[in-house]
Every structure is written in structure tokens, then in C-alpha cells.
């Protein structure tokens, strides 16, 4: 399967009377996006704003950031999410509009056990890719008594429809660059690297709602799946929960898949992708890890594997088990994990305890703390919203509202800042002992 991604660069984002793309400026007629809300029974309306780099703006209740993309040929947009038609994603031509993001917020703080935020200026913005580009911020206003499941799926649909709309608006302009991702031809003489991608854990499901993440389907207790790398880039995996340190934007530009594809046939052979979920029971974990290792060896013929995880401790144990089982079969494994607290030292806080896992990338501690100054503009929630720092929290819809006013000075953490910590390797941080 070959996927060609052609790109145009968006230099600025403005509201206008007609949605159009002219001389690098994307103009958006709000009504075009508001119309998407009419198709979602649980939304009364949408609040739509633009946030620009350098603005004194804080965006809260963030659950996702999306890059504008649409299919040009060869496939449909977001099969299983925007349509009930199923096609396997990952072939044909996709248009990507670079240089902006669509930030999706849920305006009810208490619907998700995990949500993120980010500021468009200040200390965190300096190291945040999303704060360096204009953002179209969409926040659906729901009716009283709306169900959070409907809300989440509606928000995802609105976000993805907006993504498609914007990308389609650019189609009249010739692409500035094109890149084809293709690992059909295998090069067995090159070091062969596979990617084991843990996409989901049901431990974070709210009120037993299973997030429909694979072509719009939930796969809570799935055994390992083999998926083509281009499927992942082109709409097979879609987020539908709280913020868990990965965004749709990062999946669309998946840094491991993109880099392995770019080097495929040069100094690397990209063997393929395994999709796994976090096991919440040991028996399942034993099977998943052994099965994953076996597929890596027997089906993908990998010499090495990079293993990434979802948020949390159980997820770390699972990637550790996969890496360890792979090593036992002679496959060199490198998991990317994080440290789950900040008041300790790295000698004791690695949650992988299998001694044969001797090469680990650490993309930071969750609890590198920040104190962020008051802002002029708050998006993503009401003016009087509280900022739940990570010490405070909301669990399964149960309020423990002890946060500071979100518009004022707030305490935040690295994991809560959307864009600073990516489970799939998009971020640059590393945990260091002080």
C-alpha cells in the first residue's frame, strides 16, 4: 500500500465571509463549521475562536489537536468515523494543510478523567509545537443533560469534518511538496525495524465507555493486530477520549512511522506495525506480549522493534513485557516510556523491571511542574472555569474542584500541557536527575 501526502503551507488563519485559501491565508466562514453542529443532536452550537502564537491565551479542556487533511483520491475520509462505509485507509493521495491546527475542547470539565491545556505564549509555549502555529479552537456547547459519549463522538466528528473542509479548501492550489510512503518492497539485507504501537487502555475508560479508536470501533481486549503503516497515518486510528499525551495531529504525522518510512530502503528496512492495547490482567498481558514477539519474529521478520505505550503504569508494564519477550526471541527492543513522578530519582523509577530490556528511551516525567501566569483570554471553558492541576482531579465524573481559576496563575504539569509530552515520540523532552 502506497500513500502519497501532498502539502500546502498555511501562513495565516482568519475568519472571513467565505471559506477560501488565498495567497497562503486560510479564511474561514464560521457558518460552514457551525453547520456541522446541526448534524449533532447533542450540540446547541459551537464556540469557534482563533488563537495565535504569542497571544496571552490559555486553552483548557483540550482533548485533541487535528491537522487539516482530506483524501484527494484512492480512499474515503475517516472510514468508520465520518462514514459507515468501510475501506481500508492508507492508499491513494492525501492533501495535508500544514502550519495550523484544529484544537478540540470539551466545554464540560467534568466529563473526562483526563484533559489537557496549553498556553499560546510563555515558558511552555516556547517548547510546544501547537503554540507555534495558529489554532482554530472549537468548543461545542451542549444541551443540559447531554450524554458525554454522544458529546465525545460528536466533537470528534466536528473536528474531523473541519479538518476535511479546510484541506479541501486548499485543493485549488498546487501542492508545495509531495511525499510517498511505501514499504511494500522489503529489503532483508538492511536492519529490519518494526513498530509495536499500543494505542489504548480501557483503564481510562470513563463509566465503562469503550473508546471507538480503530476505524470507529472499540477494541478493549484486542490481541495484537498487524496493520499497514500507512493505515495509521491516514485515518485508521482515531482518538475519542480525554487527552492522554497523544493527539490526532501526532498520529497523522506519526514520527516513528514517518521516519522509518523515510529511511526504508536506505539504511533501514521498515518491517511493519503491530497494534496492541494495554492489558489490565496479567493473563492477557502474558499472551499479548508473547504473541506480539512471535508476530514480530515470524510474520514481520524484524531484527529490532520500537515499542510505544499509552498513558500510565499498566501500559508501561505491557510494553516492558513485549520488549522483554522480543529480546528473548533475539529481536532488539527499545521501548519509549515515561517516569510517573517527579520527586525521586531515575535509578528506582523505571517501571520496566525485566533486566533484558537494556535500551530504553525516556520521554520525560509526567510531573515536571510549571507555574503559569494569568492570561487575558481563556478558551475551552467558561470564564470562571477551574484549572485542575493534576494534583487535583476529576475522577469518573466525580468532582473534586479544588483547582485555581483557570484564567489566573495556575499550576500545571508537563503531561497536562498538550504538545509537551507525546507517547509516540513526537516530543523532545527527556527525564533528568537533579
Amino acid at each position: 500500500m502506497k500513500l502519497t501526502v501532498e502539502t500546502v503551507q498555511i501562513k495565516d488563519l482568519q475568519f472571513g465571509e467565505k471559506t477560501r485559501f488565498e495567497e497562503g491565508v486560510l479564511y474561514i466562514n464560521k457558518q460552514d463549521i457551525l453547520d456541522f453542529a446541526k448534524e449533532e443532536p447533542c450540540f446547541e452550537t459551537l464556540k469557534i475562536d482563533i488563537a495565535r502564537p504569542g497571544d496571552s491565551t490559555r486553552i483548557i479542556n483540550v482533548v485533541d489537536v487535528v491537522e487539516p487533511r482530506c483524501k484527494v483520491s484512492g480512499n474515503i475520509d475517516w472510514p468508520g468515523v465520518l462514514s459507515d462505509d468501510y475501506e481500508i485507509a492508507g492508499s491513494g493521495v492525501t492533501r495535508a494543510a500544514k502550519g495550523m491546527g484544529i484544537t478540540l475542547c470539551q466545554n464540560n470539565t467534568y466529563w473526562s478523567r483526563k484533559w489537557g491545556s496549553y498556553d499560546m505564549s510563555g515558558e511552555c509555549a516556547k517548547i510546544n509545537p501547537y503554540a507555534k502555529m495558529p489554532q482554530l479552537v472549537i468548543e461545542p456547547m451542549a444541551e443540559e443533560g447531554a450524554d458525554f459519549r454522544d458529546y465525545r463522538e460528536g466533537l470528534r466528528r466536528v473536528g474531523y469534518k473541519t479538518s476535511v473542509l479546510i484541506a479541501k479548501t486548499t485543493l485549488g492550489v498546487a501542492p508545495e511538496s509531495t511525499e510517498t510512503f511505501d514499504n511494500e518492497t522489503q529489503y532483508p539485507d538492511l536492519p529490519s525495524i518494526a513498530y509495536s504501537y499500543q494505542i489504548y487502555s480501557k483503564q481510562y475508560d470513563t463509566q465503562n465507555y469503550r473508546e471507538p479508536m480503530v476505524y470507529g470501533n472499540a477494541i478493549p481486549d484486542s490481541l495484537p493486530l498487524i496493520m499497514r503503516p500507512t493505515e495509521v497515518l491516514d485515518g485508521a486510528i482515531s482518538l475519542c477520549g480525554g487527552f492522554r499525551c497523544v493527539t490526532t495531529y501526532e498520529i497523522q504525522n506519526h514520527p516513528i512511522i514517518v521516519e522509518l518510512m523515510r529511511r526504508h530502503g536506505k539504511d533501514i528496512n521498515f518491517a511493519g506495525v503491530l497494534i496492541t492495547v494495554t492489558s489490565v490482567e496479567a493473563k492477557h498481558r502474558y499472551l499479548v506480549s508473547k504473541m506480539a514477539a512471535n508476530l514480530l519474529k515470524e510474520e514481520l521478520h524484524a531484527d529490532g522493534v520500537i515499542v510505544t505505550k499509552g498513558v500510565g503504569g499498566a501500559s508501561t508494564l505491557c510494553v516492558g513485557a513485549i520488549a522483554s519477550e522480543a529480546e528473548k526471541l533475539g529481536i532488539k527492543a527499545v521501548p519509549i516510556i515515561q517516569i510517573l513522578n517527579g520527586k525521586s530519582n531515575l535509578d528506582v523509577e523505571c517501571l520496566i523491571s525485566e533486566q533484558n530490556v537494556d535500551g530504553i528511551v525516556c520521554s520525560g516525567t509526567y510531573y515536571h511542574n510549571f507555574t503559569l501566569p494569568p492570561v487575558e483570554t481563556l478558551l475551552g471553558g467558561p470564564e470562571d472555569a477551574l484549572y485542575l492541576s493534576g494534583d487535583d482531579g476529576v475522577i469518573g465524573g466525580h468532582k473534586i474542584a479544588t483547582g485555581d481559576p483557570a484564567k489566573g496563575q495556575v499550576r500545571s504539569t508537563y503531561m497536562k500541557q498538550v504538545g509537551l509530552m507525546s507517547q509516540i515520540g513526537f516530543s523532545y523532552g527527556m527525564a533528568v536527575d537533579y
Partner: protein
Amino acid sequence: MENKKWRVVCYINQFFGQIGGEEMAHVGFSVKPEAVGPGLLFQKLLQDECEVVGTIICGDNYFAENTEGAVAEGVALAAELKPDLLIAGPAFNAGRYGISCGNMAAAVGKELNIPTVTGMYPENPAVDLFRKDTYIVETGILSSQLRKVAPVMADIGLRLLRQEPIGSAAKEGYIKRDIILNEEQPENAAHRAIEMVLNKIKGEPFVSELLPPHFDEVEPAPAVKDLSKIKLALVTDGGLIPEANPDHLKPNGSTTWGHYDWDELLADKHFVIHSGYDGTWVLENPNRLFPVDVLREYEAAGEIGVLEPEVYVACGNCASVSGSKAKGEQIAQALLEKEIDAVILTST
């Protein structure tokens, strides 16, 4: 421009204070209004911006034999000198001297709210006691290393005075203070992982960013011989607590725990504070977290002696190893005081 110089006070033992060796280790505190011993070197290193205004000297045994009193005495002497910075030692691998340097640096830092710095060999027993409370610069075993380590200590001290950031332990040469922070790298984690796995495949050297720890081996306690005579308690890290959260547990990184009468807990408003799992099933039937229903049947049938009516609840999400050890010791102590014979630990 005439700048006022920062006032530096040094703390040293009787040997470096040129009072004498082991035979003089009993001598008490004395103060010299100038730099003495290693202080001369610090004075020279810091002369542009600081002045060593005094040196506090104390015998190793005097300090070790009544540490609490010595600390109070030492802090009072330091306070009189109105320091902006305290430099203790360095103590190298000397055990008693390490304890007095660590105590002085920690206590003066806390009481006078000023920066402090000391130096020790990593295996000095004082390191583990004080590394979180001061900057302990890593030294060699022998005092002949003074010229190598003093500039590092002076530099950290000066930057603490200027309120400039101090970098990571490895970069700066001090011993880990149990703070983990993130630093942005030139390459993202994906690129770093690809390079690492390629090096592993090729058999080339690589540096892991983390390594699996060697955890303590915990010997299981001997099996209970006769269940019908024991007092049994239940302990969990599952975070089921009263809505009022009287013990201030946190959804993650919690350092506290509570004990609650089971029937009262369920009769009043309660919830799962743990943010690492979906509490839906526990709230639907709390016996899924604590098998009280079954244990009460066993109790009624005389198969177990007594089931302790209070349950012990911690929240295990994102807890550090040291924080968990501390909670474990506190809970174990509380169980001992209630003469509990055995516990069932349930996790989530």
C-alpha cells in the same frame, strides 16, 4: 560600581580547622573571623563577589555524640555571622565529618533560609541522609582532591547566591537530590529510539536513557497456620474513600492513606479517588475491591478469627518508590498497634 559582597561562612572540623587530629576530635565549637583551611581556597575562588566572613569549627566526636545539640549550637553561631551562603567541608569519605557537614548544611539552609553547599564521596553514609536538603558535590575519597572539587562547590554556591539555575546532577557534578525534571533534547524521542535500536541491532554502543531497577527482594512471611485464631485486616491501594476525603488522598502521587470503618464508608457518600483506573465497577460493588462479603461469611463460619472492621486505603497511582515505602511502614505500624495478625492486600 561598588557592590556589596555576599557573606560566606565555612564549616569545617577540627582537623581542617588546624586544631588537631583524632586526639582533638572531642573539642567543641569555635569561630574564627576569617577563612581557615579549605576556606582560603574558597575565598580565593569567590573573591570578586564574596567574602568569607567566618569559619565555624567543631570536633568530629563533639558533633557526633550529641548531634541535636551540636546542630542547634552550630546554627546559632552561623546566624550571628549573618551569612548569605554556607559552605560545609568538603568531607570526602570521612563518616563523622560527613554527618556534621550534612547536618550543618541542611539545618542552616532551613533555619536561615540561605543556600548551602557541601562535598562528599558518593559512598559517604551522610550522602543518603542529606542529599535532598543541600547540594552535595561529588568528591573523591581523599582530601588531596580539594583543588579539584572546590571550584565546583564555589561555582554552585555563587550561582545559588545569584539565583541562577543549577543544571542537572550529572552536568553540574552534585549528588542527585531526588528531583526529576525534563530537558528538551536536540532530537525527538522517536529519532532517539530509532538510533538506539539501530545501534543495538548493529552491536554498536548505545546509552539507555533509563535502566530497569533492581528492586528489593521481599521475603514472604510464613503462612498463617490456623486462620480461625487470627485477626485479619484488608489493605488496598485502590483509593475508595469517603467523599469528604478526610485524609487528603490525591488522585495521583498521593503520600497519605486512611482507615475507615467499612460499613460507615459504604453508608456515607464515597468515591474512588484513584485516577489510574475506572472506578465504575468498584462503585457498583465495593466488595470487588475488598472481599468483605466473603470474609464475613468465613468469619461467621468460624473459619477466620476476626475481620478488622476498618479497612486501610491508600492510592497507588504514580507513587514514588520512597513514598510508597513510607506509607507501607506507617500502615504496617498501625496494623501492629491493632494487633493484626495477617492482611490481604488488594491492588487495582
